[in-house]
C-alpha cells in the first residue's frame, strides 16, 4: 500500500535526522551548536511521536523542549562561557576510546537481542479510528485514575523550580557571573 511505504520513508528520514543531530550534540566543541543540535533532535523526536499516532504527546514534547528547556540550556551555556573562541577539546583520546567501546558494545548487544526476539517483526496495527478518544481519555484518566499522581507531579514541579531558582541565585553582590549580560533592562 502506498501509505505504508511513504510512512516508512518518512519514518526513516525522521529517524536519520534524530540520530544525526544527536551525534552532533554529543561531539561538537561549540556548546551553542551542540545545544541547537540537541533541540532539533528532540523536536524531530516529537515529530516521530506524531507519525506514530499520538499528536498530543508529540505536541507536548515539542512545546516542552523548544519552549522551555531550549531557553534554559541556551542561557546557561551563555552564562558559563569564558571566551568566545573556546579552548579546544578537554577530552583525551582514551576518553573517546572507552566511551566508544562501551556504548558500541551495548548497541551491538541490543541490536542482536532485538533481531533475535521473534515478536518484534510484527507489522503496524491500524491507527485507532476515533483519535479524539485518546485526548478525552487523557482528561478522564487525569481526573479519575491518575488524579493523585497529577497532584504529586504539581508539587514536585513546584519544588523543583523553586529549588532551581534558589540554587542558581547569586549569593553576594559582586558574584553575579551574568552581570554584563542582563536580559531586559
Amino acid at each position: 500500500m502506498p501509505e505504508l511505504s511513504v510512512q516508512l520513508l518518512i519514518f526513516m528520514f525522521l529517524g536519520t535526522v534524530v540520530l544525526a543531530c544527536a551525534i552532533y550534540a554529543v561531539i561538537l566543541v561549540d556548546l551553542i551548536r551542540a545545544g541547537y543540535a540537541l533541540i532539533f533532535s528532540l523536536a524531530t523526536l516529537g515529530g516521530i511521536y506524531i507519525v506514530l499516532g499520538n499528536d498530543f504527546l508529540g505536541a507536548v514534547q515539542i512545546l516542552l523542549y523548544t519552549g522551555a528547556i531550549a531557553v534554559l540550556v541556551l542561557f546557561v551555556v551563555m552564562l558559563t562561557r569564558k571566551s568566545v573562541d573556546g579552548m579546544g577539546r578537554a577530552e583525551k583520546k582514551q576518553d573517546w576510546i572507552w566511551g566508544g567501546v562501551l556504548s558500541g558494545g551495548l548497541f551491538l548487544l541490543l541490536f542482536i537481542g532485538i533481531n533475535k526476539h521473534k515478536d518484534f517483526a510484527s507489522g503496524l496495527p491500524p491507527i485507532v479510528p476515533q483519535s479524539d478518544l485518546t485526548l478525552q481519555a487523557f482528561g478522564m484518566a487525569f481526573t479519575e485514575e491518575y488524579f493523585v499522581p497529577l497532584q504529586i507531579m504539581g508539587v514536585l514541579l513546584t519544588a523543583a523550580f523553586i529549588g532551581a531558582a534558589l540554587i542558581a541565585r547569586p549569593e553576594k553582590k559582586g558574584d553575579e557571573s551574568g552581570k554584563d549580560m542582563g536580559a531586559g533592562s
Partner: protein
Amino acid sequence: MFFGNVKFDSGDQIFVWAYHWFLSLFAAVPWLQFALAVLLMTVPVLLLFPTLMGLTTWAERRVLARIQNRMGPNRVGPFGLLQFIADGIKMLIKEDIIPRAADKFLHTLAPILIVIPPFLVLTLLPVGRNMTVVVSDVGLILFFALSGFGTLAIFLAGWSSRNKFSVIGGMRVVAQTISYELPLILAALSAVFVAGSLSMVSIVESQGGGFLNILSWNVWTPWGFAGFVIFFIAGLAEINRCPFDIPEAESEIVAGHLTEYSGFKYALFFVAEYLSAFAIAGLATTLFLGGWNGPVIGEVQILPSWFWFLIKMYALVVVMIWIRGTLPRLRSDQLMSLAWKFLLPLTIVNLIGSAIYTLTAQAGPWMWVAGWLISAVLIGTTYRVLVQIVYTKDAKKREYRYA
C-alpha cells in the same frame, strides 16, 4: 452550545469540490494521487500567504503614511500596488554581507529557521468549512509548540552575528517572548472550555448557530472579549510588532538581532514577521471571532466561509497596522511589568470566568444570563483592581506649566 444546521451556497465548498474532482482523475494510480493530494494541500498555503503578505506591505506603508499625514508609495503601478515587487527585486539583488567574525553556518541558518514555523502554523488554521490543511485533535497545542521555534531562531540570529548589539537584542526578544507566552496560551485556553475540545475545527463549529450566526461568537461574552483583547496584546508582543517592537526598532540598539543582516536574509525576517502576524490574527479569529462563521439569512449563508475567515483575519492585520501608527513604543521594563503584573493575573481570572460561564450556560436561559453577569462582574472588577494597583497607585497628578 448551539449547533445550527446551515445550508451553505455552492461557493463555499468550491475549492474542496475542485480538489476531490482533480484527485478522482488519478484514481488508477494511487501513489500519484497521494503525491498530488499532498501537493494540492501545501502549495496553496505557500502561494496564498506570501501574496497576501505582499499586499500587506503595501497596505502597511499606505495606511501608516495616511496616519502620519503623508502619501506613501503611489508611483509603482496603480496606487503603488506593485511596490512590493520592486522591494522584492531590490532585496534580491543586494549584496549579502556576512561579518568576518560571525559564525557563517549559524548566521545563514537563522533566517531559514525563522521562516519555517509561520508556514507550519498557517496550515493548522481552519480557513473554511472542510478546508483545514492539517486536521488534528490537538491543533491548538501544536500551534503554540511550533511557534516556539521562532524564538530560538531570533536568538540564533542575535548570537551568530558576534555583535554586542545583536546579542543583547536577541536576549531581549527571548525575555519578551517567554513572558508573553503565558498570557497568550491561557487566554487561548479560555476559549477551549466552551468548545470542549482542543481541535480548532471544533472550536469554530461551537461558535456556529445562534442569531444570524453572529451572536454566538466568543467575543460577545465577557471572558471572550477580555480574552480576545489579552490574546491580541500578547500576540503583538510575540511577533515583535509595535508597540512591542524594541527588538527591531531602528532607534533602539541599532537594529537588535537584525544588525548584521542584509539583502534577502533581511527580507526573510520580515516575511516571517508578517506571516506570524497572519497566524496570530487567524488564530484570534478562530478562537474568538467565530472563524469562518458569517451571517446567515434563513438557511443560506451569504458569502462563502473562507471569505469570512480571510476578511476577519485581514481586518485584524489592519488593526495591527493602525496600532503601529498610533501607539508609542514600550520600554523593556514597562513591557515586563505589563506581562507579569497585569496580563497574567487578568488571564487567570478570565479562565475562572470562562469556567463559570461554561458551567451555567448549559443549565437554561436564566442560568446563562446569571453566568454571563457573574463572569462579567468578576473580570471587570479584577481589571479595575489591577489597574489601580499596578498603574495608578503611585502616579502623581501631572502638572502642566505653560510658558
